[in-house]
């Protein structure tokens, strides 16, 4: 008899815990679809970025734009600056230097 009452008291003590466990199970059951939904959304976001990355890498080489020069440096062929630059490059040979070999020979006579 005593054993029965003990059993009953134990069951009575365990009942709230069981109830709590069942409650947790139910909450879990209701959270599962939300979790699946979230995972799907994350998968979609990841998929979008992955696709975008693949597209970027798959661009043909010729479509890649060359680096844009910071400043237009092409000078007009008849511009004063271009003509002046070329004039500065025109050199007249040093005549006395050209005579050096001849002078050496003359001095050796």
């Amino acid at each position, binding site marked *: 008899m005593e054993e029965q009452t003990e059993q009953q008291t134990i069951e009575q003590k365990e009942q709230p815990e069981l109830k709590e466990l069942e409650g947790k199970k139910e909450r879990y059951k209701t959270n599962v679809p939300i979790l699946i939904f979230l995972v799907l959304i994350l998968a979609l976001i990841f998929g979008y970025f992955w696709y975008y990355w693949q597209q970027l890498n798959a661009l043909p080489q010729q479509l890649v734009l060359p680096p844009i020069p910071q400043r237009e440096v092409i000078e007009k062929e008849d511009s004063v600056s271009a003509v002046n630059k070329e004039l500065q490059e025109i050199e*007249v040979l040093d005549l006395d230097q050209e*005579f050096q*070999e*001849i002078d050496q020979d*003359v001095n050796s*006579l």
Partner: protein
Amino acid sequence: MKKISFILVLILILGGTSVLAIQTRPNLSERGSQFLSTTSQEGLLERIKERVQISQQEFEQNRAEVKNLMEQNRIEFRNWLENKRQEMKAKIEAKRNELKAKLQKITTERKQKIAERIYDRINALNERMTDHYLDVLEKLEKLLERVESRTAKVKTNGRDVAEVEILITQAKEAISKAREAVKNQAQKIYQIELTTETNLRIDVGKARQMLHDDLKAVEKLVKEARESVRLVIVKLAQIPKVDELEISTTSQPLQ
């Protein structure tokens, strides 16, 4: 009788014109002077002077024609000079043989070889330097053509380029003068007039000095030509935004 006199008159007229034609046709040696006027030829500014308006295409076409004419003249002058030099080579060789014979009589073998070498070097230097001066003048001509192009563009935009035009004319004259001097210099042959062995050094020195003085005179003219082109550029550069002006579709009348 009338027929005979008519035929005689006809022969005289035809004969006269053909003689005139022969006389006016220059020979190869005279042709050299024709090429001298490369820069004094009708330039771009003169070509478009009379035009009320000019399109970009017409401008470029005129410019191309001027450049083409200049190039043709340059090639013809170079060819003429090459022919002249071929003729001169035989003369130089003949004079060299004369010198050799004289040297054999008055001096040692060592001095003989040196004197011959000097003779060769003097004439070779003349050829090299005249070629160099010619190169410089050709470069100056090309630059001046570009300056003319820029001046014409500035002018079509209604800017005053009167002073630049005067300087362009002066530069053309300076180049032409220098070219004439180079042409004359290129035709010279330098020879050593021998007297005695003791005077050998002096005699050889005289030929050397003569070449030096002649080349110095030509160099002066070439430098003056370069300076005249520089002055045009300086004057042109004083025009505001000179490098930005182009032939516009609504260009100003040229005068």
